[in-house]
């Protein structure tokens, strides 16, 4: 099966997102909560895709530990990076919704919010952990173990929150009726668009890292006498791209 190009993926993501938000604003009805409910079409897809991304990172990490192939480590790393960015978006949009709906930016008694924050903070420690290890092989292995453990925590956390009672945060996928048809359609299109955006950004970042790695390899091959540039203090790249470069530390990893 051939893989779609980055441009195709980006176009599909843009189309679905534009279509999804057009449906959300012009087709889906305004329900009892009022116009502020439109944040739901942004906030929930961001949170769902971020959590799925964390789980996918765990799957890549399992493959990395099984095969020792650094490509899977790089995929896991980039998946976590983009998911952390999406989680920041989910937290920010959720805080805005909470302020409008509940009158507070944050509600510590709500298990959904607190558990999502715990997951986010857990993954925020991925980078310090990763870059505190100098040896690349050990770094990749430890990061994979971390990603698997944290990834296993995500569905457990989701279940625990579902079982929690009482709660005030609305439940999107509940057994009690769920969403009306028009809202469900808009939501699903937005969710698909957000998932494609996530995939596009992961692909884009992987391509960028591969290009950067190829460049470093080329430099070493063409200018063997040249001293390699001093490695950034925390930059020990995932093995899949680290063989090619020391570029990973500046930007992707640390800036989310």
């Amino acid at each position, binding site marked *: 099966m051939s893989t779609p190009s980055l441009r195709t993926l980006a176009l599909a993501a843009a189309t679905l997102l534009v279509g999804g938000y057009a449906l959300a604003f012009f087709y889906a009805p305004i329900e009892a909560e009022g116009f502020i409910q439109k944040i739901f079409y942004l906030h929930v897809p961001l949170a769902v895709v971020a959590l799925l991304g964390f789980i996918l990172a765990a799957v890549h990490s399992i493959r990395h530990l099984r095969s020792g192939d650094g490509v899977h480590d790089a995929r896991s790393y980039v998946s976590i990076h983009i998911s952390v960015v999406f989680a920041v*978006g989910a937290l920010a*949009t959720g805080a805005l919704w909470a302020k409008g*709906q509940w009158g507070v930016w944050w509600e510590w008694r709500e298990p959904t919010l607190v558990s999502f924050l715990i997951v986010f903070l857990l993954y925020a420690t991925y980078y310090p952990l990763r870059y505190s290890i100098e040896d690349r092989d050990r770094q990749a292995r430890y990061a994979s173990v971390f990603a698997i453990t944290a990834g296993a925590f995500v569905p457990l956390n989701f279940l625990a929150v579902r079982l929690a009672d009482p709660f005030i945060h609305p439940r999107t996928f509940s057994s009690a009726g769920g969403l009306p048809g028009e809202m469900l359609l808009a939501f699903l299109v937005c969710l698909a668009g957000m998932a494609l955006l996530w995939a596009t950004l992961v692909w884009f970042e992987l391509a960028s890292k591969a290009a950067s790695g190829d460049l470093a390899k080329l430099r070493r091959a063409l200018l063997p006498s040249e001293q390699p540039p001093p490695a950034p203090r925390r930059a020990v790249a995932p093995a899949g791209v680290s063989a090619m470069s020391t570029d990973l530390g500046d930007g992707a990893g640390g800036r989310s």
Partner: protein
Amino acid sequence: MDPVLALSEAEGYVAGAYLAFAALLLIYLAIMAAKLARIQRELRELAESTGAPQPPKPKRKAGRASRAQRREVEAARREAQR
């Protein structure tokens, strides 16, 4: 607080949420664009230092020249006048 916000107040929060997402995305893309520009620059430098044919410079849209380009043109003009 009234559970159903007035439309104007709700609009502010909804706009804020969507703008926050757009800003996050733009910041990410700006960081990635800067990284790609650095890769292009390093590739050009590498080509220069090895004497290999240089990779094409990124095409600029016709219109306003960059500050660096204007500075180069100005320096060339001054050199010619001397």
